[in-house]
Every structure is written in structure tokens, then in C-alpha cells.
């Protein structure tokens, strides 16, 4: 996964509720066997219409084309488990998502790849969304170690919560499989006991 320390850049508002992974990564981009080419797929049906950039879509507007944060509505990432949605957002340049709630599988996929998701109270997200809607005030700085978000041209700062283990993993870009395999003996011992108790499971 990509480590996350301090990241500064433009935040774009995308506050509709229930933005699903079909919208984030349409099915036409799901037919590879690797992770390449997914940046083009990110929000593809919103970004383009008739083969041309859709001028109404926020990430095509002046001041937002190089956004690296999205301020999003509730239940962002709902629907399909496709991790392609996360790979695509990252390849498109998105490093963190700030919202009220994230769909479960999507949130785990983000955590496994180093795309930071930050959950805040609805009032705070609404205010942040309103501020970054003004393209002269859309710069945001996230410091994961300090757990702060600085916004509104540096005038404001707020803290955010994150579980200790998740924070460590983001800061170091941990290889989760390697860290789990440290417990291989525990897994073997569990497995032996579990199969003895439930011998119909193979």
C-alpha cells in the first residue's frame, strides 16, 4: 500500500449521498487482469459525455482538475466490492476522502491500498464542502501523524479520529499479509482445533 504522511492539495466537493462504485468505476474498466489503466475509468461516465469532457462535472472545472481530496456525501462507495474503484481513484490522483460515512467493503479496500478515509460529523463535512466549493478556498492539508485537517487557506484546523492500528498501517505502508504470516503458528493451531470441533469442514 502507498504510505500516507502529510499531503497538501486541492479538495473537490462531491456531496451527493450514496455515490456507488459503479459510478466511481464503470464496468467497462473491469475486464483487466492487472491494475493498469484505471485512472481513465475513474468517474468515467460523469467525466465524459459523447467522448468529450463534461464541463459540468466538478473534476473537469477550473481549479479542481488536479484535486487530490474529495469531500463526499454519506455512504460513499456503496454497492459492488470492486477494488478497481479504489485503484482508479488513486491512479487519478486522489489521496484521501473526507465524508460522514463510507460503505464497508469500499472502506476496507481504501485501507488496504493507502487511500485515507476520514469520517467527520455531518455539520463539519457540510461546512468543509461549502468552503471548498469556492475554488479560491479549496486547498486542504492533511497531516496523518498529527491527525489534523487544515483548510480555508490555512485559517482553520480540525482534528479527526483514526484507529491506532489503521493509522500505523497508513503511515508505514504496511504489507498486511507479511504481518499476518508472523502469526502462522497461531493460525495452524487454531485450524487444528477448529477442524477437530467441526470435522465436516475441510
Amino acid at each position: 500500500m502507498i504510505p500516507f504522511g502529510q499531503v497538501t492539495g486541492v479538495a473537490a466537493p462531491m456531496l451527493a449521498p450514496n455515490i456507488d462504485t459503479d459510478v466511481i468505476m464503470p464496468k467497462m474498466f473491469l475486464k483487466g487482469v492487472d491494475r493498469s489503466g484505471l485512472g481513465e475509468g475513474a468517474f468515467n461516465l460523469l467525466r465524459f459525455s459523447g467522448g468529450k469532457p463534461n464541463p459540468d462535472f466538478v473534476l473537469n472545472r477550473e481549479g479542481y482538475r488536479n484535486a487530490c481530496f474529495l469531500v463526499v456525501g454519506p455512504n460513499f462507495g456503496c454497492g459492488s466490492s470492486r477494488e478497481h474503484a479504489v485503484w482508479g481513484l488513486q491512479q487519478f490522483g486522489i489521496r484521501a476522502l473526507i465524508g460522514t460515512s463510507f460503505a464497508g467493503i469500499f472502506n476496507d479496500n481504501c485501507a488496504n491500498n493507502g487511500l485515507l478515509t476520514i469520517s467527520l460529523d455531518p455539520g463539519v463535512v457540510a461546512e468543509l464542502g461549502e468552503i471548498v466549493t469556492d475554488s479560491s478556498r479549496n486547498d486542504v492539508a492533511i497531516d496523518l501523524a498529527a491527525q489534523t485537517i487544515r483548510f480555508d487557506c490555512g485559517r482553520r484546523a480540525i482534528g479527526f479520529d483514526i484507529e491506532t492500528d489503521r493509522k500505523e498501517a497508513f503511515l508505514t505502508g504496511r504489507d498486511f499479509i507479511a504481518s499476518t504470516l508472523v502469526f502462522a503458528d497461531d493460525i495452524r493451531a487454531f485450524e487444528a482445533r477448529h477442524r477437530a470441533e467441526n470435522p465436516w469442514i475441510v
Partner: protein
Amino acid sequence: MAARTLYDKLVDAHVVRNLDDSGLVLLYVDRTVLNEYTSPQAFAGLRAAGRKVWNPKAALMVVDHVNPTAAQRTRAMPDRSAARQVDYFADNARDFGIEYFDILDPRQGIEHVVAPEQGLVMPGMVIAAGDSHSTAYGAFGALGYGIGTSDIEHYLATSTVRYRRLKTMRIHLTGAAPLGVTPKDIVMEVIRRIGADGATGYAVEFSGPVVSDMSVEGRIVMSIMIVEAGARGVVMAPDQKVLDYLKGRPRAPKGEMWERAATSWLALSSDPDARFDREVMLDVSEVAPLVTWGTSPDQAIAVTDIVPDLVQQDGHDRRTAAMRALSYMGLTPGTPIQSVPIDFAFIGSCTNSRIEDLRDAAAIFRGRRVAEGVRAIVVPGSTQVRAQAEAEGLAKVFTDAGVEWRQSGCSMCLAMNDDVLRPGERCASSTNRNFEGRQGPGARTHLMSPAMVAAAAVTGHITDVRSLLRGARQ
């Protein structure tokens, strides 16, 4: 010991060790099912790191998302990218020693139809798989849930996942379902009441007399569809119906082992005084056949209703999203939903493609014809369901009615194969997602039960299936 929910018991029974002091655990996973589109990067990761699969016997690989559904099935894929995914899938099955059902295998089908058919899903298991609708397995008293590709890779390499315990929600169903109201309508009613994020962060247990009376297949419908309210895991207490479903299946235990397993399984339930973080009650006698009008599964109304006036939506962002949905769907507030004409009718998907779903649909198609200008297709959930439907004469009912009788696969649930709608086409669909572009860019999807899809197919517009059921009885 404090009273525990069934969910807590299943998690407790699978904890290998704690990973921190705030509830993060290493959870043992008993089984998985792999498909050709969410697994390739997981196998590539294993190959790159030189890792093996911890327990190849616990996995099954089934091609389901990309396969064509044309009546004449061949091994060839219609496009090169699908062919590459299937070839790589077969390579991975061979190189990692995992059982593989290719598209010509008589056991092939949608993963969530195939795994139960084979008896691979048993009460008490934890089953995590690379598809959001893996909650299907909750219907059997297993904890089923979906994971992404990184977690598939983690599972394959370790037989475990890193897991944070969920909040618990009980959905308690009472009352008698009226004529024409199916498990699909009941779960859609729950979703519209609690919202598309109503169960986000929760493991859901379905309970109550309605569940006890419901068939296992009906329970599967609810287990799958409740994902559209955000549920991250589903469980139900296994009962005699689950045992009857499993007994004699190819992978179910046999003889004395069966007796031992059955005794253990029937003991699985939430303690009577277990506390849930949230309780949802629904009297199903209040439920009508439902249909979605928008692009989120919670945007649903009774088939007798009109397209809602969005001024009632609370909050600016919600209202804006709902207005966008109406515009995408080409609908105007106040329009009776029954007056909306359709171009396409689709019966299929892991939610509604089992034999009971096909019987429900056939009951409507029997003696009727698909309306002029409508294309209707039935895509059975598996090759076995297809064979059974042919043996029961259902396939002939479909073809006599002018419905295309297809081979199995995910098909137009997500349109990753060649079953894709054109922009603006409107589809009555027995699937689970009505997202923008789900059945093709610009395509318009109305979710409903299989019988409701059949009713729309024969009249050419969205129709209250009860009018046709009553007609059939006279």
C-alpha cells in the same frame, strides 16, 4: 457468560487472535468462492511475492460475471478481455491447485447459486468472498460477507482476514405476506424504510415467524438484497429447512458425520436475551409489491403509487441527488408508476434466479405472450437450475410466451458480458442494483420481484402483478 447474538458467536468461534485492544482480530475464514474479475490481481499478488494458497481445498473458482448467456454455449468468450480473464483464472486454478468450474461444467453458474447447490455452504461457517453479495450465505446460518481483492489475496495466503467487529441489527419480520408479495418485496420494503445506508456498519440477523415460514431460497433473496442497505454481514438461525436443503448435496457431510453436524447446527441461534444495537420491526402484511423509481435501491414505491414529489426529500444534497435520479430515469413526479412502459424485461441475478423465482415468473407467463416491442430474457442462476426448469416444463412456458431462455451467469445484473442495454432503454429487472449505468451507460433499471418483471413483460408497462394473479385464479 453474557447473552450473545448469533453473529457474536460465529465471530467468537473464528477468532485466531486479537490484533489490538480495540476489537481488531485475525478472523479465520472457512471457505471462499472466487470469480474471474475480482480475483486476478489477488493471484498476481501471490505470484509476485512467491506466496502459496494456505488452504486450496477451501476455495472454489467459478466463472460467472463475464460469460455469455447465448442458448448455445461454447468455451469461446465473445471478447478478448473476457477471454484473457477466463484464461488467467484457469491458469490460477491449475497453478494453485484450486477446484474450478469452467463455463461448460454442468455445475457452473453464479457463485452464490452454485456454492449452496454444491452443499459447500454450511451453518456455523465464516465465508468471505470477493463479491458484495456473499451475504447470501447468511441464509444458512453461516456468516457471509463480501471483501475486496486485497482481502482475497490476504485470505488466500493466510486463510484469515483482519476483521473489526460490526454493530448488530435484528430485522424482525411478522405478519402474513399478502398475495403477490415475495421475499424480494419484503427486503425492498426494509431497504426503503431504513435507507441505502441504514445497515452500513452492521451485521444483520433476520428473525421472526415470516423467516421461519419462508423457504431457504426466499431467505437467500433477503440475505443478498439487504446489502443494498449497506449490511456488511448477514446471519439467520439455521433450522430444519436449512438441513433439508443441505442433506444429500454433493459436499454436505454424510452418515454419522451428518448427524453430528446437524445437531451442532441446530444449536446455533442468538440467545433469547441477546441485545442488538438496532432493532427493526416490520409487519409484512403492510407490504405491497414494490418497484424502484430512481437510481438507488431505497428509491422504491408500491406499484400502485405515483412517482414521488421530491420536495419531500430532506436536505439539499439528498434532494439534488433525487432530482438527478428522476432526470436520469426520465420520469416526472406524479406519474403513476404503472403507466411507465418498458423496453426490456430481465429475470436473473444471484438475487432472483433460483428455481422458485423461475416458477413465480412462469406462473405469470403461462398462457400469455410478451408484449409487442418488449424483449424479455430469463437467465437461470446455474446450469442445474436451468436443467431443473427444463424438467419442470418452465422453460417451455417461457419460450411459448416469447421469452428468451438463456444459459446461466450474472448477465444483466451488471452487464459485464454482452447482455447490455442501450442508452435510454428501460428495463424491468429482478436484480439488486438500479445504479446509473449499471445495465449499460444511460440504461434505466426498475428493480422488482421476478413475478413483477413477468407482469411488466406481458403488459409492456410496469404492472401490479396482483391483477394478473387474480385473473389467473378466476
